[in-house]
């Protein structure tokens, strides 16, 4: 079995009001010097086979078709 992690983040230049709110709240908790905060998503995906090449191709297709909205988001795939 393959365990993979997909990380989806907002592209540079896309406004992230949730990240901004978190940044503000961290400042309010007394954490000085917090720069920009950007919020993203993590998906842990299990695949029922052990073919790494196939897993990479499939996960990329999953990101393109569903997990990420490539208009506004980038994605990265990590295979354990």
């Amino acid at each position, binding site marked *: 079995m393959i365990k993979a992690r997909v990380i989806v983040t907002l592209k540079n230049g896309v406004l992230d009001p949730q990240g901004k*709110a978190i940044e503000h709240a961290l400042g309010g908790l007394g954490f000085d010097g917090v720069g920009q905060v950007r919020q993203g998503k993590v998906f842990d995906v299990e695949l029922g086979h052990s073919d790494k090449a196939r897993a990479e191709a499939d996960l990329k297709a999953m990101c393109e078709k569903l997990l990420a909205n490539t208009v506004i988001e980038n994605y990265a795939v990590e295979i354990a």
Partner: protein
Amino acid sequence: MKSAVVLLPGLNRDRDMIAALTRISGQPPATVWETDTAIPDVDLIVIPGGFSYGDYLRCGAIAARMPALRAVAEKAAQGVMVIGVCNGFQILVEAGLLPGALMRNTSLKFVCREVKLEVANANTAFTRNYRPGQIIRCPVAHHDGNYFADAETLARLEGNGQVVFRYAEGTNPNGSINDIAGIVNDKGNVLGMMPHPENLIEAAHGGTDGRALFESALGIAA
């Protein structure tokens, strides 16, 4: 003219939309369920608002991958008119039938109020019964209506007159780029908009500014 309404789990504005279409066209619309792979022969398909699939992953993302949306895409490619309102707009964008994306409101708040809209293009199948530049009232109710498109896409939309409705008089409720409230595709047969014209079609609603949109699309003279 015949119409159809797409029904998906989690939508909640379907009843209002069916009532509006029935009242304006004089006949009830056909209904299409999420698993339907074909849509009857109609002139207009409407995807109403709500919270399809609980807004999981991204608003409209799951709905956009359902068989009914593939059927909508086929009809749209044949030139059938399609309107997506609110969650319907989010679904059309996720399905790739309209460009751009709808992001969280910059206020981070769900906004439920009336706004002013400018008819930015009155020369579309959906707006021909409005006057160019006409300012209309329309309710909005959404959490993710902040329209975004990259600079190139935005320039193309503006250049082609694909921006159909803009928030007017400082009423932009969500931070939408260029005050965009509604757009059409490049062929002009698919409209997506965040405001709810179906909720302003009779005197009991307190106004009828939304009526001309459906009358335009259904080919009813002003």
